[in-house]
């Protein structure tokens, strides 16, 4: 029935909805891996935990004592070994170990900081993508461990698979975010537009309290419009919710991945305009993995060469 419905759609929509296998070239894999490592570089912990101990354990802190992360000399050692691991991993050398170590350092340090009585979500998506990358390299071991060369370079064969798992992880995070919104708000999230103005006011007030900088004219005007027409909040929330929920459609094909990626970027851009909240790492990952300019640049270039040859 769905197939029959799709057949009735215009050609451009059929092209968007047609499931296609993502084929990754080696060049695409290499460039994306290097950019991803560059994004992760700054995310590796830069300072020891703010307080000693983990009174409110989260993540890894449930299973092991992470208090060593409060020691500045240990932290320096962790940072540099994790960075070496990141570089070696990006180059495809002993990925299960090198990426694994970097991932462990990130998870341990962030778990430590988040186990001190408050929450933060910056960079969580990046860590999950790295976890997907690492799992891909470990998964590759089941086929090709033959001698030390096999162990060191086995991960390389799985680069396309790692990339696919990273893209799937991003799509999953947005869909899960939409599901969480529905669960936590009793299924009414897209219709809570009447109180959305409060979140805007709070974000503006926090910005002023931090830096003394008032939000831009657009944000201030938007608050005034929402004060007078609260129902417009629903107009803002509904598309945002639908975009997040249907993020899994990005896995259908490259074109849909581009559309969903650009849609989610617009959503983040709007959030920044209205609430001055950037979600920088999310946007970087959307550009890199869903919009994927590397793939489209290569495709355009290949098309141009082919046309010249004809």
């Amino acid at each position, binding site marked *: 029935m769905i197939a029959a419905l799709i057949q009735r759609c215009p050609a451009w929509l059929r092209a968007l909805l047609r499931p296609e296998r993502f084929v990754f070239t080696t060049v695409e894999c290499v460039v994306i891996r290097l950019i991803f490592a560059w994004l992760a570089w700054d995310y590796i912990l830069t300072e020891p935990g703010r307080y000693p101990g983990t009174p409110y354990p989260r993540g890894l802190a449930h299973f092991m004592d992470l208090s060593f992360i409060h020691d500045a000399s240990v932290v320096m050692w962790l940072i540099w070994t994790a960075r070496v691991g990141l570089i070696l991993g990006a180059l495809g050398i002993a990925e299960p170990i090198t990426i694994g170590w970097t991932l462990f350092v990130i998870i341990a340090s962030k778990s430590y900081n*988040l186990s001190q009585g408050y929450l933060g979500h910056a960079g969580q998506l990046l860590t999950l993508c790295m976890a997907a990358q690492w799992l891909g390299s470990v998964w590759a071991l089941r086929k090709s461990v033959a001698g030390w060369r096999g162990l060191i370079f086995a991960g390389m064969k799985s680069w396309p698979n790692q990339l696919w798992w990273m893209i*799937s992880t991003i799509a999953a995070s947005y869909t899960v975010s939409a599901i969480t919104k529905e669960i936590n708000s009793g299924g009414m999230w897209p219709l809570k537009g009447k*109180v959305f103005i409060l979140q805007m006011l709070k974000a503006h007030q*926090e910005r002023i309290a931090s830096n*003394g900088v008032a939000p831009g004219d657009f944000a201030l005007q938007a608050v005034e419009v929402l004060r007078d027409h609260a129902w417009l909040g629903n107009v803002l929330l509904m598309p945002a919710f639908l975009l997040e929920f249907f993020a899994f459609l990005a896995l259908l094909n490259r074109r849909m991945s581009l559309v969903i990626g650009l849609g989610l970027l617009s959503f983040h851009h709007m959030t920044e305009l209205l609430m001055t909240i950037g979600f920088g790492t999310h946007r970087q990952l959307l550009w890199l993995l869903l919009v994927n300019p590397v793939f489209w640049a290569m495709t355009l270039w290949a098309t141009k060469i082919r046309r010249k040859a004809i």
Partner: protein
Amino acid sequence: MFLIMAALMLIFGDQFPFSNFPMYSVLPDSVICMRVTDNTGKLLPLDPAFGIGTTLLKKQMERELHEMKDAGTIEKISNPGLPASQKAGKVVLEWLLAHHPPRRPELSGQTVKLEQVSYRVKHGEVVEKVDVLAEGRVQEVKR
């Protein structure tokens, strides 16, 4: 991988590195934020004055409320009531002044206030309320 990751995120919730991404998943009828003012009531932007953002202040407040909940002093962390907020606010302001010396010398020795600004929707109108949570003296800075 999509289904596995989605399932793990939903099952583990906010346990790093997993997250069910709960930011803004609850849109409550009232919100609060925190700010610091000087003895004349003028806003003191935290970053230029003390080198931190209001988010850190709020996280510190959450931490204090967590401890009060563990001690059985309050029942819930969100909207714990003004007296509880003032009690936590006093500790937070003490922490701010003890750990973040002022970046501006003229603040040295001044009295500052920690305020809580709350917004709520009442009969379709947005109502703003400001409560002073605590007062404290900025430490003297040697010039």
